């Protein structure tokens, strides 16, 4: 650790991992509810479990991004963080607000929660991924603005590198596009149209900047490749991401009442969206092949390479599979979407945060890398989680294909629930694979507590 204030990243990362664990537990509950419909009913109905599952995902990734920013920006700017105290205060505010929100979901009926939290003043709740009560949404904005102030001041006074500028731009974009979550017109088509300005412009837009910056940062550190080379490729990759991804928003505008020309625009541009992910994979492997040093933290190198591959598979390939309008006509709103969502979120965003944690945590704990023993365990966790996610995706894809066939294509189309019964086998297999993922995650957490002799550069 070059600067004392980078230490504020540590609680952020610990919280991220804790919430990640919660997310997976609720994922397992939902997976079981898919096949044992009345499991935990009425204590935790499916919609509550799902809200917790997706909201925890978003919140832990945000914790990860923030932690990464607090670590990376001082180091890139070559100065201490503008205000470590503010960063720490925001951590506690965000954690308490996040925990209170999740408890609210679990303990209070959603309609009551809405009433209690002023949803009648400004109705923003009850839309997918944006279920948070108004005070939580406002809290997210405040935390984000305080963080951006803190980070922007740091960068303004320090060295400006491509990496910290791109990271900062991504975080600013994240905050700005989140403002669309406060716009909820009664007109459902408009509601959905601008809802995507949060959701799509996050995950297929500004988050890719954050991801690119984090990956570039770790690659510079673990490979020792010249910053100039890494930074110009970073710019080209994120340029491609936005060139394809901004109009690529159109792939959500096929069937929600928007004009039909979006079928052309959305198909053409989103067909290009795999390109930046493919470049990112090539980029990661090339930089590691051209490394000028053997970094003792081999686990972090593995995570970095894994991010490239899995982001390409999940976001690129599985996205492309159903992005063309004639295909999407059949796959829209089926388990295919769920399959893509799982591998894309894991491959792109979960893994890049874990890459960052893997690289920084040993340093934050006062060593360059973990012991060989701990690293081996972390790599086992990597493979268990990653392979499990590949199979979760494959099973959901199979479920989706069968569902579409039975419900939407067959000569005698089946009703929704009848079709669900037919694909139950795949849901069972997904749930079992989910347990493997959970095992991997447990191993990952255990690896933090494994001692042993510190690994040295070879």
């Amino acid at each position, binding site marked *: 650790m070059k600067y004392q204030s980078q230490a504020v990243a540590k609680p952020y990362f610990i919280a991220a991992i804790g919430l990640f664990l919660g997310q997976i537990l609720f994922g397992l509950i939902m997976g079981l509810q898919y096949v044992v419909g009345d499991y935990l009913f009425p204590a935790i109905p499916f919609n509550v479990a799902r809200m917790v599952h997706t909201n925890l995902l978003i919140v832990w990734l945000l914790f990860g991004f923030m932690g990464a920013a607090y670590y990376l920006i001082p180091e890139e700017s070559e100065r201490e963080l503008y205000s470590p105290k503010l960063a720490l205060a925001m951590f506690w505010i965000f954690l308490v607000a996040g925990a209170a929100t999740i408890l609210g979901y679990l303990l209070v009926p959603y309609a009551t929660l809405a009433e209690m939290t002023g949803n009648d003043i400004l109705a923003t709740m009850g839309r997918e991924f944006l279920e948070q009560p108004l005070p939580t949404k406002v809290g997210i904005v405040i935390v984000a603005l305080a963080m951006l102030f803190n980070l922007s001041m740091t960068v303004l006074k320090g060295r400006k590198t491509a990496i910290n500028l791109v990271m900062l731009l991504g975080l600013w974009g994240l905050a700005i596009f989140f403002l669309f979550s406060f716009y909820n017109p009664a007109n459902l*088509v408009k509601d959905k149209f601008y809802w995507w300005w949060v959701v799509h412009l996050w995950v297929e837009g500004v988050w890719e900047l954050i991801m690119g910056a984090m990956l570039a940062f770790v690659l510079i550190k673990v490979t020792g490749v010249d910053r100039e080379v890494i930074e110009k490729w970073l710019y080209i990759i994120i340029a491609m991401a936005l060139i394809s991804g901004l109009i690529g928003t159109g792939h959500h505008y096929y069937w929600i009442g928007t004009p039909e020309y979006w079928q052309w625009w959305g198909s053409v541009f989103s067909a290009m969206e795999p390109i930046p992910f493919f470049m990112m994979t090539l980029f990661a492997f090339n930089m590691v092949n051209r490394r000028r040093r053997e970094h003792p933290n081999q686990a972090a190198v593995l995570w970095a390479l894994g991010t490239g591959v899995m982001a390409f598979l999940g976001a690129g390939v599985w996205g492309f599979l159903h992005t063309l309008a004639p295909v999407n006509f059949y796959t829209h709103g089926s388990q295919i*979407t769920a399959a893509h969502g799982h591998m894309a979120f894991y491959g792109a965003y979960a893994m890049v945060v874990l890459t960052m944690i893997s690289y920084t945590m040993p340093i934050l704990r006062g060593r360059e890398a973990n012991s060989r023993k701990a690293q081996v365990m972390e790599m086992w966790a990597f493979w268990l989680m990653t392979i499990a996610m590949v199979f979760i995706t494959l099973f959901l894809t199979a479920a989706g294909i069968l569902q579409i066939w039975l419900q939407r294509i067959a000569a005698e189309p089946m009703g929704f629930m009848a079709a669900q019964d037919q694909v139950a086998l795949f849901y069972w297999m997904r749930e079992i694979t989910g347990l493997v993922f959970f095992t991997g995650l447990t191993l990952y957490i255990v690896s933090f507590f494994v001692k042993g002799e510190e690994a040295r550069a070879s």
Partner: protein
Amino acid sequence: MSSAFTKSAARNIFYGGAVFFFLLLVGLSFDTMQTLPKRDNRENLNESAIRGKHIWETRNCIGCHTLLGEGAYFAPELGNVYTRRGPDFIKAWIQSQPTGVPGRRQMPNFNLTDAQLDDLVEFFKYTAGIDTAKWPPNIEG
């Protein structure tokens, strides 16, 4: 002939490309807003349907169902449920939940009043009238 690959050129292309395509997105969105009145069934978006949307949101229906294909994939598509089932079936169905059949997926009972049920049905009537370019492929959603 020069041969260079500079960071500043890469940076300019990133900023230029981002602004360019964002403006294009804004332009297309502007055109979309102009075109929506022909497609979004706003003439049927009455007070009752607006209240219905509010009920839809505050019961977190999207946590299980899809609406125009977006939401969770645990329970049936409801964008076209008005056409598929009709108003009376919808109301009776909501009131009879949960079924309590062992091992089957359960929907909570939200204790909606008759007026609220009517509002919700009105909302579904409105969504069913949105021009979705012939999606879903068939009535099953």
